[in-house]
């Protein structure tokens, strides 16, 4: 029974990726990497939920147009978000003529989508798949916390839901975007599905701590099975552990005998100037890792500055109902291994 590292039966490449973000993200250090933005977070819609749908539409549209293909050239679409019943994806992606599966993996949805898209395109069932995920700060606040205008204080361990959507198109050929001769192809060589782990964290304002053990578990299994050392990877990217979770993950990995201090980065810490923008423990949400990987990380791989990267998309599988009932928050972490085909830098 294969339950560890999964290798697609043929080569799979990230053919195109696109990112859409809101105003807070444009004030962060990655601003220049993003494709589309709206500083008012509205995207022309009159409710926040519709704004989130529109972000997904824009993200997939942008990824498709970068490749110069049509929606009917894509075999399947895997998408998800943080809203109840995946409403963001269901409505946002209506106009595309692509067979669709809705996903829910909390903040790990970007990685979940990549894992499934890689396995499906790698299996030979279809030559090209797309995956999209998103979160919207206002829609998430409304659903998971308090009304937007409610005057509350955030604790230092709390994280800020990213307003953004990231789309990836995954396929069997290493097509490079038109007019781009500087870039190299980015391959997804293998993936690993995470296990849900519950370490009893009940504080919804400390999701980093809830997710860190799951990320550590996936990484430990990966290093053990692949026999590779953490230092042999260019980058180890985690989804949205934030300041608290990153601190704990590095400690846990050290005690497991796989120290990752040298090359670990976290999307939740990359996306904002944490202190300056008053983002407490950093960014979170499906959009957090989606936009960071779709822009900054893929760019690093394309230009060859990073030769290979492990991306662990982390998710806190909480529900407001279970939290109110005193339930704990299980975490999950799915792994995607990117390899850059760009050499001579």
């Amino acid at each position, binding site marked *: 029974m294969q339950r560890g590292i999964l290798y697609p039966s043929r080569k799979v490449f990230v053919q195109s990726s696109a990112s859409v973000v809101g105003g807070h993200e444009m004030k962060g250090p990655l601003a220049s990497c993003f494709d589309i933005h709206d500083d008012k*977070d509205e995207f022309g819609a009159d409710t926040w939920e519709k704004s989130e749908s529109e972000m997904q539409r824009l993200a997939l549209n942008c990824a498709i147009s970068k490749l110069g293909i049509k929606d009917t050239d894509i075999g399947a679409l895997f998408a998800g978000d943080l809203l109840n019943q995946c409403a963001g994806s269901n409505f946002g992606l209506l106009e595309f003529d692509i067979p669709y599966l809705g996903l829910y993996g909390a903040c790990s949805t970007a990685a979940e989508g990549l894992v499934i898209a890689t396995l499906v395109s790698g299996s030979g069932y279809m030559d090209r798949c797309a995956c999209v995920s998103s979160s919207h700060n*206002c829609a998430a606040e409304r659903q998971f916390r308090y009304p*937007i205008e409610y005057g*509350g*204080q955030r604790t230092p361990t709390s994280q800020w839901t990213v307003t953004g959507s990231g789309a990836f198109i995954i396929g069997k050929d290493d097509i490079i975007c038109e007019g781009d001769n500087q870039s190299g192809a980015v391959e997804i060589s293998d993936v690993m599905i995470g296990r849900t782990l519950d370490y009893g964290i009940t504080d919804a304002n400390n999701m980093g701590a809830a997710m860190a053990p799951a990320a550590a578990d996936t990484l430990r299994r990966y290093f053990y099975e692949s026999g590779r050392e953490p230092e042999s990877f260019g980058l180890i990217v985690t989804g949205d552990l934030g300041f608290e979770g990153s601190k704990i993950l590095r400690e846990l990995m050290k005690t497991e005998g796989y120290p990752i201090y040298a090359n670990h980065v976290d999307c939740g810490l990359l996306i904002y100037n944490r202190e300056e923008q008053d983002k407490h423990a950093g960014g979170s949400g499906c959009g957090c890792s989606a936009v960071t990987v779709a822009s900054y990380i893929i760019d690093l791989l394309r230009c060859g500055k990073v030769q290979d990267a492990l991306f662990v998309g982390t998710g806190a599988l909480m529900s407001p109902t279970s939290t109110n009932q005193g339930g704990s928050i299980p975490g999950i972490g799915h792994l995607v291994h990117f390899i850059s085909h760009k050499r001579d830098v």
Partner: protein
Amino acid sequence: MLEYVYAFLTGGILCVIAQFLIDKTKLTPARILVTYVVSGVFLTAVGLYKPLVEFAGCGATTPLTGFGYSIAEGVRKAIDENGLIGALTGGLTATSAGITAAICFSFFAALFFKSKPKK
């Protein structure tokens, strides 16, 4: 002038107690509000809150404990005037202005305003 100082100090201290509880005990703000109202009713019932109101004026009536004080005082007066039915009528009567104001103003706020992203 002194009444402003007393109002400031009393109101400030009541807020500090709540802040301390939020930071140190993980009590959520909603629980704090409920605790304060119920404490206000209790302290009024045992005769401790009225002297504080006489001392601090708005410093004691503005915090939510003062809301509890209004409820308890209203209930007591209504019972003195109308008997047991006052236990049902007194509380809302005494606080009706505040509750109605909050409902009506909020409705108009909902009519005229739209929530904006957090800064």
